[in-house]
């Protein structure tokens, strides 16, 4: 499985090449990858049904307890199936939707990378790995929202979503670190068994806050919900896949996954219940304010995400089961509806629902698809949405007095959602045919396959929801809630849930009839609230941060290298000096007698440094510095470090080469600083030199830890197969550090190139 993901990332990198060879069919070819993953997951089902958990071990950085181990249990399997299955359909859809678009290869690169990251997110067993994939989905989502990058609105929305989700990611990272401390493990499976210890731990509250902020931002919970509707500027396949079926459910996944470890406390129930309920209502009400089809669907996604959070907060077995069914139902119908919205967009050239009408005659296949999916959204029988809603009411009826508050909220939200479903299914397709910016023609099959299949699945699983009995039971057992087999039935019989459904139906139909007037009222009435809403706070916060950044850049980064040097050195002086004063050991003087030639080399070095300071010509100063450099190389030779000596000599030589190139281009060698400033610089220099000397003496005096060089000397030949320890350390023992160094080197070279050549270009053009 890890190999499948790696293949995916490699394939993503090869997309531009593939696209050159086979053109738009690339999307169809790429769909083979999620299809293969989907089929592989299917074959694992029998093992899973027998109660096994598939563990695919893979080491990564064992020294830090980081691994790439994948764990396929019920929850991971469910999510992976959704990601790969809907992924295939959306890729096929994309082949038709973005046919001939110049940036199709770029889209596919990011899209496949997202798909793999999302799969990694739900399969990973390690907190660090999960976090890496989590951030990868945020970044790929950012790139996909900003796909139409020439549109300023797209760029702004993309940035906003990145700021919200990546900001939440930081909180999540902090939460994970605390969680690993509290639970004494980085493995999700192990954490799940230590729930009691974690909930009693002193760090429980802070870690819960961190994890929940991460989950809430990702899953667009109130008050972070605003980025999701704005993300609708993305191409429709992205809205259908990332922003309704998969990525926004990552937060739900995380909360469900950590439910055994964190859930069940009063804080958990209160926070998730309140935030989930609030999100549910806000989403349902805001959806009715919109006329843009995609925005309506986006707000109804917000409502669905809130419902799932609410159910996880309730946390009883029935509630979690309802959450799982709801998740499935939502992925199926919302995916279909978004794809239908994309078809309408392509066919009519608009997404404004009030300007469409009578399209069922020209789009004979799209209309029934939309109708079936909308039935499920509305929660009417015989759809899976109905089963999910009944399960939701059932779960809420079970809990005590607070359940009634939740029930009223849920019924209201269900009613409003039904109105949204009716609007989406009826307004564009019925009534007289209206003129639209583009005249609709027949829909290409590539566009229809996906939504039709998803809608059909909503119907099929609604008639026979028993298909999911096993899956839900296994998933619940995996979340620490074993018990008897769950029974999902298409028709629940008459009772409390049905009465609530009926109440919702009546409310929904009333709202639907009065929608045009109601919408005007909502637009005007809610405007003051929206104008002071979280989105405004967020952008104000962003603006203040920018101001702060501008201020500190003015102060610290003023373009004078001497200021940078003084600042850096003083900061270093303060930090190291403090550490040295607080916990210094005895200073020890080197015992061996000084050789005459050693003293001479040291004297040469000092003389070079001082000469460089007082010289009045640049060439002389450079020569003085060079003599100091060569003396340093000599020191390395004296203390038998030939590698360092060679490197130092070569660097000195190449410095001369570079200087020869720039010498005539530099401004005149003049004195820029006042005597007072030079006195200050002298003071800083003396302090730094003194501190380094003291530090060296202190290090010599306190050998509390065993010397690392002993290990290196002992293991260089047997482990590293090399006699030159410097090289063994560079390319083997500390290869990661070296990799970092060469990356820095590469960045520096790119910086030089950019600074010099872009200015040269400007000069050339100007």
């Amino acid at each position, binding site marked *: 499985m890890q190999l499948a993901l790696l293949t995916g990332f490699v394939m993503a990198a090869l997309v531009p090449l593939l696209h050159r060879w086979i053109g738009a069919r690339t999307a169809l070819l790429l769909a083979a990858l999620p299809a293969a993953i989907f089929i592989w997951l299917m074959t694992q089902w029998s093992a899973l049904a027998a109660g096994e958990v598939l563990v695919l071990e893979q080491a990564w950085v064992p020294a830090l307890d980081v691994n790439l181990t994948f764990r396929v249990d019920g929850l991971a399997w469910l999510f992976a199936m959704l990601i790969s299955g809907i992924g295939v359909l959306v890729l096929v859809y994309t082949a038709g939707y973005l046919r001939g678009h110049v940036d199709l290869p770029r889209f596919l690169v990011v899209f496949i990378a997202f798909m793999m990251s999302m799969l990694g997110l739900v399969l990973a067993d390690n907190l660090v790995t999960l976090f890496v994939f989590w951030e990868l989905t945020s970044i790929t989502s950012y790139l996909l929202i900003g796909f139409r990058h020439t549109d300023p609105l797209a760029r702004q929305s993309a940035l906003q979503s990145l700021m919200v989700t990546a900001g939440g990611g930081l909180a999540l990272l902090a939460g994970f670190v605390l969680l690993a401390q509290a639970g004494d493990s980085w493995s999700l499976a192990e954490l799940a068994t230590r729930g009691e210890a974690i909930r009693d731990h002193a760090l429980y509250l802070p870690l819960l806050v961190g994890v929940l902020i991460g989950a809430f931002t990702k899953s667009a919970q109130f008050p972070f919900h605003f980025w999701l509707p704005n993300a609708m500027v993305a191409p429709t396949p992205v809205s259908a896949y990332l922003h309704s079926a998969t990525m926004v459910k990552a937060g739900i996944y995380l909360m469900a996954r950590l439910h055994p470890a964190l859930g069940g406390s009063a804080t958990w129930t209160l926070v998730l219940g309140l935030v989930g309920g609030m999100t549910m209502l806000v989403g349902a009400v805001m959806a009715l304010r919109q006329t843009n089809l995609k925005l309506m669907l986006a707000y109804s996604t917000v409502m669905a995400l809130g419902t799932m959070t609410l159910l996880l907060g309730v946390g009883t077995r029935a509630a979690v089961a309802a959450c799982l069914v709801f998740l499935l139902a939502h992925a199926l119908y919302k995916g279909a509806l978004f794809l239908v919205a994309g078809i309408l967009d392509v066919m009519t050239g608009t997404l404004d629902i009030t300007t469409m009408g009578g399209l069922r005659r020209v789009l004979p296949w799209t209309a029934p698809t939309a109708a079936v999916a909308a039935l499920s959204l509305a929660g009417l029988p015989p759809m899976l949405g109905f089963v999910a809603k009944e399960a939701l009411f059932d779960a809420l009826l079970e809990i005590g007095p607070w359940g009634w508050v939740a029930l009223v909220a849920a019924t209201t939200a269900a009613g409003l959602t039904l109105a949204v479903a009716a609007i989406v299914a009826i307004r564009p397709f019925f009534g007289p045919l209206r003129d639209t910016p583009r005249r609709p023609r027949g829909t290409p099959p590539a566009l229809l396959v996906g939504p039709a299949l998803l809608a059909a699945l909503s119907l099929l699983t609604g008639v026979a929801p028993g298909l999911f009995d096993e899956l839900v039971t296994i998933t619940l057992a995996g979340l620490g809630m074993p018990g008897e087999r769950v029974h999902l039935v298409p028709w629940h019989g008459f009772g409390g849930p049905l009465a609530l459904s009926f109440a919702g139906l009546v409310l929904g139909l009333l709202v639907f009839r009065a929608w045009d007037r109601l919408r005007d009222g909502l637009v005007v009435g809610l405007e003051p609230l929206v104008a002071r809403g979280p989105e405004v706070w967020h952008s104000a916060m962003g603006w203040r941060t920018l101001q702060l950044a501008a201020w500190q850049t003015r102060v610290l980064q003023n373009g004078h290298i001497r200021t940078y040097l003084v600042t850096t050195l003083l900061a270093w002086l303060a930090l190291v000096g403090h550490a040295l004063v607080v916990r210094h050991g005895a200073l020890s003087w080197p015992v061996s007698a000084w050789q005459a030639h050693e003293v001479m080399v040291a004297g040469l070095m000092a003389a070079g440094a001082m000469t460089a300071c007082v010289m009045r010509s640049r060439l002389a100063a450079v020569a003085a510095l060079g003599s100091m450099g060569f003396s340093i190389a000599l020191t390395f030779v004296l203390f038998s470090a030939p*590698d360092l000596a060679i490197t130092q000599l070569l660097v000195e030589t190449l410095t001369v080469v*570079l200087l020869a190139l720039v010498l005539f281009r530099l401004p005149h060698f003049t004195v820029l600083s006042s005597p007072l400033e030079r006195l200050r610089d002298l003071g800083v220099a003396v302090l730094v030199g003194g501190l380094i000397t003291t530090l060296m003496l202190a290090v010599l005096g306190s050998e509390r830890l065993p010397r690392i060089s002993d290990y290196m000397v002992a293991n260089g030949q047997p482990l590293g*197969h090399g006699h030159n320890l410097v090289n063994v350390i560079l390319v*083997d023992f500390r*290869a990661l550090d070296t990799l970092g160094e060469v990356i820095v080197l590469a960045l520096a070279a790119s910086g030089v190139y950019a600074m010099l050549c872009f200015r040269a270009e400007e000069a050339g053009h100007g």
Partner: protein
Amino acid sequence: MVKSSTLILGVAAQLLLPLQLLFSVFLLLRGHDAPGGGFIAGLVAAGGFALYLFAHGRRAMAAILKVAPRDLIGAGLLLGLLSVVPAWWQDEAFFTAQWWTLPFGIPLSTPLLFDLGVYLVVLGALLTAITALVEIDQVDNPH
């Protein structure tokens, strides 16, 4: 000042460049057991190219180098990253060194590949900086 017309320098650079490159490869390969290694070898090679650049000018050097210096950086980084993969394949920790013996007793290892990556990055970075400096010189003084 970039293109010198000194005959001695020109001939010397022509003779020294291959020798320096050979020496740099020698340093690279012996680096694991004796003083040398990718970083030093990269510096030596860069020195050779810089000498040639001074003697014969930017175009002549570009003709000998064949690839853009910036591509060397990319290739080096890629090689460094790729040297990680074999360990991953063996289900071992990130960056665990792998050692093989090819037919005819030729030893090969991921540290060597990694060192080659370092060599290319160092060479590429220095040449990028040097050629960039030369280029702006020519923009300002076209002749």
